[in-house]
């Protein structure tokens, strides 16, 4: 029965391989991918609901009992992210139909998207740190292919930076794994946690944990985000939406796993460092979001700000903080994907990326304008929308832990988000229209539909957060009590 939990990774992987052989049949590739992602979402939701009744599930490959074999673990936290990944990617792929272009579709676009999702879901599900490294590589190789797909000049230039950074950070990841294995002698996450508790988190282990922090902060864009704005603003909109919604979140997931499950004994050192890095991220991201007039750059810096904000939830290290962080993580995956899709649509309509060259879009595209406005409000955290509950709980956690500096900077960064995005909204949607009547392109339904669906999800999550509240509480409880996780894994 537990065999189910390999499916969110296995379905996209096998389907991606199948698509390689069906390269000439674009129509099949399109609808096949969407169908596969819908199935994947359904399976993930079913697993998520099963966990609520049966507790944490695990799958030992080849019947090698932990800690000896590789295993997949599905707890509420990881499955919530898997479900969100599957749903977001469904809409991103739908959006890609009309916008990605025939040339890229023939260059195995859908195959690489499938592999990307397999890697992301695998990273969320695995319970073994070396397997986590392998899943990261699966995801990254697919992302290398996606970011260079099409081979435009500026794409090539930015992707070289992206690949070089990620190859080096993967080597650092491997170094950290080597040191940890040399010290602790195991690779199973639960077993590592147990052994660290037994021997105490010695200074040596703390140094290793900081090495892991360095690796994941490069991947998630925590303080070391300098590669991110460039590489997230060159690929086509649908790919940028996948990257912005999924890739940094995998790094954040790994940070949460490592610093709540394994290295939680010395919060005076590790969590202080993370707090400092989150602070720099918030400030740096805010400066970047205000500095540019290029819409895609502004949106990329907004991705960075949200990374800093989510990590406040990890720094405060309490159940409330974790709950807030999980709510905000889910909200951010939906809302950032939506924001990038809307921004991309505006660029497609006006053929410019600079907001001061756009004007009066709301006359011809009222729905687009309203959706953009709602997304901005959701990202800032206005009450009836999805960002509110996450921000509230993170703030509550920060007050309880006495992290007032982080709290104030976090809220100021929300104001910057409001300022930077409202600036886009007012410049692009208000004023006299620049498009002459001949220039007005009709917006096809297939472009608007994914945006509309994501908007509805963002509103629904805000109005009715109780729908996922018990699951989020369970996830936060597991994060706050690592013993629950360890017992589920090592209790044979």
């Amino acid at each position: 029965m537990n065999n189910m939990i390999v499916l969110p990774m296995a379905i996209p992987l096998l389907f991606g391989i199948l698509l390689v052989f069906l390269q000439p049949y674009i129509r099949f590739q399109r609808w096949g991918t969407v169908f596969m992602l819908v199935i994947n979402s359904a399976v993930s939701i079913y697993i998520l609901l099963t966990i609520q009744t049966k507790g944490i599930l695990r799958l030992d490959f080849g019947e090698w009992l932990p800690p000896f074999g590789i295993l997949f673990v599905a707890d509420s936290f990881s499955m919530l992210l898997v479900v969100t990944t599957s749903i977001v990617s469904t809409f991103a792929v739908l959006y890609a139909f009309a916008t990605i272009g025939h040339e890229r579709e023939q260059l195995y676009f859908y195959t690489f998207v499938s592999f990307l999702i397999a890697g992301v879901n695998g990273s969320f599900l695995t319970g073994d740190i070396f397997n986590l490294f392998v899943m990261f590589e699966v995801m990254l190789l697919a992302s290398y292919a996606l970011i260079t797909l099409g081979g435009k000049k500026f794409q090539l230039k930015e992707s070289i930076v992206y690949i070089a950074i990620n190859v080096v950070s993967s080597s650092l990841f491997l170094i950290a794994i080597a040191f940890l294995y040399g010290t602790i002698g195991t690779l199973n996450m639960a077993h590592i946690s147990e052994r660290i508790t037994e021997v105490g988190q010695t200074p040596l282990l703390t140094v290793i944990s900081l090495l892991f922090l360095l690796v994941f902060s490069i991947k998630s864009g925590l303080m070391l985000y300098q590669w991110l704005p460039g590489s997230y603003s060159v690929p086509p909109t649908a790919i940028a939406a996948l990257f912005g919604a999924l890739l940094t979140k995998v790094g954040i997931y790994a940070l949460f796993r490592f610093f709540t499950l394994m290295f939680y004994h010395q919060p005076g050192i590790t969590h202080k460092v993370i707090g400092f890095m989150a602070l720099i991220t918030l400030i740096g991201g805010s400066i970047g979001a205000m500095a540019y007039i290029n819409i895609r750059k502004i949106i990329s810096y907004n991705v960075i700000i949200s990374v800093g904000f989510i990590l406040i939830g990890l720094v405060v290290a309490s159940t409330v903080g974790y709950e807030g962080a999980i709510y905000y993580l889910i909200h951010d995956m939906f809302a950032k994907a939506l924001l990038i899709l809307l921004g991309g649509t505006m660029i497609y309509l006006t053929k410019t990326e600079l907001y001061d060259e756009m004007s009066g879009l709301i006359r011809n595209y009222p729905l687009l304008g309203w959706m953009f406005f709602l997304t901005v409000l959701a990202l800032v955290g206005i009450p009836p929308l999805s960002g509110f509950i996450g921000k509230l709980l993170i703030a509550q956690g920060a007050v309880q832990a006495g992290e007032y500096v982080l709290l104030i900077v976090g809220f100021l960064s929300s104001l910057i988000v409001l300022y930077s995005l409202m600036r886009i909204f007012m410049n692009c949607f208000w004023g006299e229209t620049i498009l002459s009547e001949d220039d007005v392109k009709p917006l096809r339904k297939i472009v608007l539909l994914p945006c509309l669906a994501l908007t509805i999800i963002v509103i629904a999550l805000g109005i009715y957060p109780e729908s996922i509240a018990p699951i989020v509480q369970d996830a936060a409880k597991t994060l706050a009590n690592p013993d629950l996780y360890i017992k589920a894994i090592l209790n044979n």
Partner: protein
Amino acid sequence: METVMIITSGFLVTIAVYLLLSRKIIQVIVGTAVLTHAVHLLLMTMGGFGGDVPIINGEKGEFVDAIPQALILTSIVISFAVTAFFLVLTYNAYQQLHTDDLDQMRGMYYE
């Protein structure tokens, strides 16, 4: 043996860092390849050297830890794929941008 290996690995990291900081892309790629080799040596050292070949005859005695070697094997395959991809990308970039110098690529953003 461990000391020698650690020093070798450190020496390789030094070379890799030097190459990574150079301006030619091809040197950066060689740098990443050398870096992964250094890491593989480190992984092997972490498994320890004292001991026999892992279980062949079922004899009792000290065996070498086989896990690091499995990890190295996986990692070699991955780094092979990444390096191949990176080289092809660089070749493609060289054909389009007519340079392999990272400094000269800076200005080429929007054309």
